């Protein structure tokens, strides 16, 4: 299935886009999704950590993606 994926902050520089569609298997967990990202975008290793949000809420590694979910790659935030 095709997952709409948004990138923010420094990760937009690493992937060269702010929005991509990433093809994953059914029953892909967030942990699996991170592995896919790591393979596709090796530059993401340049940041120590990033969070994943699904449908505008922070997601844990065990969450399983569904058709229509919108994923966001959230590098360390720096508001304020």
């Amino acid at each position, binding site marked *: 299935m095709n997952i709409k994926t948004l990138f*923010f902050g*420094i990760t937009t520089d690493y992937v060269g886009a702010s929005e991509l569609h990433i093809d994953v298997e059914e029953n892909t967990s967030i942990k699996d999704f991170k592995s896919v990202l790591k393979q596709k975008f090796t530059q993401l290793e340049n940041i120590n950590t990033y969070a994943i949000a699904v449908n*505008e809420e922070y997601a844990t590694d065990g969450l399983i993606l569904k058709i229509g979910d919108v994923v966001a790659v959230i*590098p*360390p935030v*720096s*508001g304020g």
Partner: protein
Amino acid sequence: MFSYFCLSVALVSESHKMQRTSIKITSDKLDLQACYNFVEDDSCGGISAFIGTVRNDTQGKEVTQLDFSTYKPMAIKEMQKIAELALSKFDIKKIAIHHAEGMLQIGAIPVIITASAKHRKAAFLACEFAIDTLKETVPIWKKEHFSDGEIWVNAHP
């Protein structure tokens, strides 16, 4: 009698709906007076405010401007969560959290937090809690611009 009944129902539902949080992300200049006016309440003995300002240097290097980008719908949700958490944790009446987005010059205001309370301590604590949590959880990023380049802040903590 009937009209009196309607009136009293309307008044009750109005007070019940009274907004205790004001959340905003805008590319316009932030309005300190609006944040003050929102939290002002006759039952309160004090209003505390935190105002973030754009500093002209980072670790000895001169900053020329800051560019704030946001994941706006999620950032608003996270700011709303912080405001509601502050209402439950501290004895405050109202809280406003407003954040700017886009390019800001030195001295400009990226964030304003105001809180009103019956007694001052709760208002101070709520403002501190809100800005500390905002900096940890709200999906907003700043890019510092220097005369010779730019850098995403906090990208390599």
